[in-house]
């Protein structure tokens, strides 16, 4: 059998990579290329753009909306949409603040209860979508308005509630890893990645399955180490690695592992790829859909708590304005298909990085907000155009 004649996994040749692009799997390539262009353009136009201080601010700005975008990735994987993530994030931040500040609960408990409330909101969305058969667009559009209303009701006349600056919630956004710890983390993450890939390789050899050459695993680990080291080196040039960035990064990695290595994760991809096939294979499509909406709302809630922590307050515009649109745009720009079944949580990371750096760069250049909106729109349109074109290139993907 051909697959068994060589003991090595066929390496994609350049021609094949091009074919994969045409075949509908653009992956992360366009985004990484885009990031490089952004860095070069803004870096040459403004000396401050690539400075440690500015990049640290960028990292701080990413965490909250990036976490919300992670939830959007999950519902997009099903081919659905969640328009309520902005409102739910604001609501969750307000609930946490009320429990913590007004009720005097311990911070950890307040955060957990608020996340539970967000999960209940997601459960409600999921039930309306599956049992009542309402389109997810409408369910979450109602959520967008309704949860915003509940947020205003809970805030009452005050309009703003401050979190104590020295309290543990606000502290989360003002905690920086000491240099030794961040370097230790780089070593630990790289060692874990390399170790697990080598262990996997050994298990594959034992099972008589084709394996990648060790050199390639080492090169990949080295690349990872280089990227992490660059980030840590830059951030240590200012205040250090912010804790919120570590939280966001950990969520991205954990969610990716869960989606790729657990039953529910595999089923989310299956339902997003072909719901009818999944149903016939005995997968409970309803349960998977509800799970996805619960996960999206919970991650939105986590993002809302991070935002409240960064602002040290919640107010009537928490979770409002363009947070929803940025979160959805980030997921799509990062390479999550709007048509379901394709994309990884890293899309949220890459997408939010693109959007925040474009916004940040234009702010540094004193570009008027009118132009900023139009440029952001152009980036989003470009990303969706790439997704749609790739989809049309896929066999049977013309619908």
């Amino acid at each position, binding site marked *: 059998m051909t*697959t068994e004649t060589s003991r090595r996994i066929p390496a994609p040749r350049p021609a094949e990579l091009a074919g994969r692009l045409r075949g509908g799997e653009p992956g992360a390539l366009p985004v990484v290329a885009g990031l490089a262009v952004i860095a070069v353009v803004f870096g040459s136009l403004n000396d401050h753009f690539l400075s440690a201080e500015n990049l640290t601010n960028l990292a701080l700005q990413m965490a909250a909306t990036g976490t919300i975008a992670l939830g959007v990735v999950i519902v997009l994987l099903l081919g659905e949409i969640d328009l309520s993530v902005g409102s739910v994030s604001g609501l969750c931040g307000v609930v946490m603040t009320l429990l913590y500040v007004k009720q005097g609960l311990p911070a950890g408990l307040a955060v957990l209860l608020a996340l539970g409330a967000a999960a209940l909101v997601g459960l409600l969305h999921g039930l309306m979508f599956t049992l009542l058969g309402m389109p997810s667009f409408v369910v979450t559009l109602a959520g967008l308005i309704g949860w915003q209303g509940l947020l205003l009701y809970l805030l009452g006349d005050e309009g703003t509630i401050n979190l104590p600056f020295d309290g543990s919630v606000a502290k989360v956004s003002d905690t920086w890893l000491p240099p030794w710890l961040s370097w230790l983390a780089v070593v630990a993450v790289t060692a874990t990645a390399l170790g697990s890939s080598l262990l996997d390789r050994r298990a594959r050899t034992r099972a008589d399955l084709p394996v990648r050459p060790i050199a390639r695993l080492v090169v990949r680990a080295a690349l990872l180490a280089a990227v992490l080291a660059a980030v840590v080196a830059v951030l240590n040039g200012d205040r250090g690695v912010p804790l919120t960035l570590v939280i966001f990064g950990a969520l991205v990695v954990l969610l990716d592992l869960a989606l790729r290595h657990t039953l529910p994760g595999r089923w989310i991809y299956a339902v997003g790829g072909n719901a009818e*096939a999944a149903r016939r294979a005995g997968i409970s499509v309803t349960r998977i859909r509800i799970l996805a909406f619960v996960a999206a709302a919970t991650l939105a809630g986590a993002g809302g708590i991070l935002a409240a922590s960064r602002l040290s307050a919640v107010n009537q515009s928490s979770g409002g304005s363009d947070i929803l649109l940025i979160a959805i745009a980030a997921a799509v720009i990062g390479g999550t298909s709007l048509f379901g079944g394709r994309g990884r949580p890293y899309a949220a990371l890459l997408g939010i990085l693109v959007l925040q750096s474009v916004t940040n760069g234009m702010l540094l250049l004193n570009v008027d907000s009118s132009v900023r909106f139009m440029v952001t729109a152009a980036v989003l349109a470009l990303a969706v155009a790439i997704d749609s074109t790739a989809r049309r290139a896929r066999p049977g993907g013309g619908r």
Partner: protein
Amino acid sequence: MKAGIPAAPADGVQGEVVLSARDITKRYGAVRALDGVNLRLVAGEVVALVGDNGAGKSTLVKVISGAITPDSGEIFFGGRPVRIGRPHDAQALGISTVYQDLALCENLDVVANLFLGAETHRWSLLRQLRMERATRDLLASLDVRIRDIRAPVAALSGGQRQSVAISRALLGEPRVVLLDEPTAALGVEQTAQVLDLVRRLRDRGLAVLVISHNLADVRAVSDRVVVLRLGRDAGDFRTADTSQEAIVAAITGAEAAA
């Protein structure tokens, strides 16, 4: 040349009768989709089910696969009468169906598609290596050639997808495999690949039923041809002893017994 006598058993058949359906009737309102139809599937034999559009082929396959329940008639599996009320019953007995739309998730790789809904796992963690090993072994034993089984199914050719769908039907170790139009929309070379695969299913001792519109394929792969016409039995021929004209005549109802 022997004319097609309804429900006449073809002679010279060896092997155990795995499944027999007797006197199956199914009405949709005033329309009799199936009217007293009989079918016998034998281990190690490929039966082609042919007939014009609306002859009742798909209805009969749906009855056997449990997608619909007949109004009357009996089904015997391994000699015992059975009731097939839903698809799960058929699968539990050992009847696998590959529908024309294949029901593959194009975004998932070959391994994930083979094990869809039946993933090997421990504490809901996927056991990827076991599944990949089993996939490679199964595909190798069926001589299905796919360069990279970790690539999404979207990257495969039509013939390869059909082969994946058929291979998946074998995971539950069935005794009967029903194939709905396996060669429709395939090119010449890919059709040949799929027909080879159907022969290997027979060589494994499975009872195979193939619905097809293509009489050339039917002649190439089947041991026996069962013809339906307007919901009734219209012939049961041994392929080797029957001319194409006789089969066409049975399908169209022409009195041209060649």
